[in-house]
């Protein structure tokens, strides 16, 4: 296989995943009012699905596009002997040289993949060192299996992906914040049960297949959706959404007056979270995980069934992009 052919494949992948990214994020933004009618957990599932879509569809389309090369189907150019004015993804044309536009497109995808992989690897290392420091700081202080940090302001958080740990600060356990402890712990335990940190790690890699601006927007949207899903779960367990909302407001107020806080996080959206908690309109808990997986499998099956057409379609797109 020549480097030119690899570039062509990378360019075809880039064209597929970036067009899927643009289309799926436009649909997500366009249907946000409809999305608001879903439960917080269903919204989180849909956003996660959109994050994974370019990766899944890109893999399916590229497998179909390379089907003639892999010998799974017969290539149209070997059957019809027509002259096609576009690049070819087949054995006969394996030594062809792509245009500079296609090389650049392929390189953008490969570069973003390398950067994302490096970021995820670095976050793994950071997670290990930071978690170890946090555990050391607790000096064995534990309450109901939760580690207690020696900070006087109220805060709770989960660290880790595969085996996440829950930490709370001494301030949250104080008499002043006692009534907020239960909703906060229920919220954080909901993150653990839902495997949200692991989903964020997977999403972090899958976002390499999205357009740069879209990736950042989706990362924030997914983070917010996870927070709202954990809020909803805590509210359901307590049977009292106002208590979770009050904990959010009180702790946010407490954080605002901490001039030098060690645990400076970003990303949550207090006003939107409180509004969602207090919104009593009935919400649909669909689509479920099974329905989303079934939808993805159906999409892959459709692409596989039309492998010949997909192969030719990808070549035509490459021809159009390559000029």
């Amino acid at each position: 296989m020549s480097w030119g052919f690899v570039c062509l494949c990378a360019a075809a992948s880039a064209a597929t995943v970036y067009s899927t990214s643009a289309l799926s994020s436009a649909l997500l933004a366009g249907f946000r009012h409809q999305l608001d009618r879903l439960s917080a957990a269903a919204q989180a599932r849909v956003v996660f699905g959109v994050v994974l879509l370019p990766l899944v569809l890109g893999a399916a389309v590229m497998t179909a596009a390379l089907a003639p090369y892999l010998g799974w189907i017969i290539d149209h150019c070997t059957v019809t002997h027509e002259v096609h004015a576009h690049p070819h993804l087949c054995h006969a044309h394996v030594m062809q040289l792509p245009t500079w536009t296609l090389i650049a497109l392929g390189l953008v995808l490969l570069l973003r993949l390398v950067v994302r992989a490096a970021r995820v690897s670095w976050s793994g290392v950071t997670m290990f060192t930071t978690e170890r420091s946090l555990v050391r700081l607790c000096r064995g202080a534990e309450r109901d299996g939760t580690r207690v940090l020696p900070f006087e302001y109220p805060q709770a958080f989960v660290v880790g992906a595969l085996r996440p740990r829950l930490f709370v600060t001494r301030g949250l356990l104080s008499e002043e914040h006692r009534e907020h402890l239960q909703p906060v712990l229920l919220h954080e335990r909901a993150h653990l049960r839902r495997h949200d940190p692991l989903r964020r790690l997977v999403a972090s890699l899958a976002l390499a297949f999205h357009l740069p601006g879209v990736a950042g927007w989706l990362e924030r949207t997914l983070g917010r959706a996870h927070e709202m899903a954990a809020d909803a779960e805590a509210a359901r367990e307590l049977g009292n959404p106002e208590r979770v909302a009050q904990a959010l407001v009180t702790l946010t107020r407490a954080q605002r007056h901490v001039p030098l806080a060690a645990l400076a996080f970003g990303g949550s959206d207090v006003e939107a979270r409180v509004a969602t908690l207090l919104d009593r309109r009935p919400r649909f808990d669909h689509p479920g995980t099974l329905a989303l997986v079934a939808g993805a499998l159906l999409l892959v099956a459709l692409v596989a069934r039309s492998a010949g057409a997909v192969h030719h379609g990808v070549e035509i797109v490459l021809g159009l992009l390559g000029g």
Partner: protein
Amino acid sequence: MTARQKSLPALGELELELLELLWRTGDVDVTESHAVIGKRRGISPNTVGSALERLFKKGLASRTKVSHAYRYTARIAADEFAARRVLDAAGGIQFLANTGLLSAFVDLVADVDDAALDRLETLIAEKRGERGGG
């Protein structure tokens, strides 16, 4: 509102020694600090005063005016300061929060002011009232 800093500010030796003095004594003014630290170091009261002012500006000390002199107290506990140093050395809290490998209940850098929080509390009270009223 004091601007928040994501990591501890850098401290000089004199500032660190003054901070330790604040932890030991509770509160001090420039003259007292100079008597304990300044004379031994052979520095002027002005230098000690400037270092205390820097601690105040860095958010590590607070001050109140008594007669014509400021009295300084530490704004951060000794054990919390030590803990912060360890965390700063690990250096990954914010990075992990950005990558989603750390999710906190509330956001320390939330872009929401006291007026907005007051509005939210009113809204929560109303909803509680509606629920209580059936």
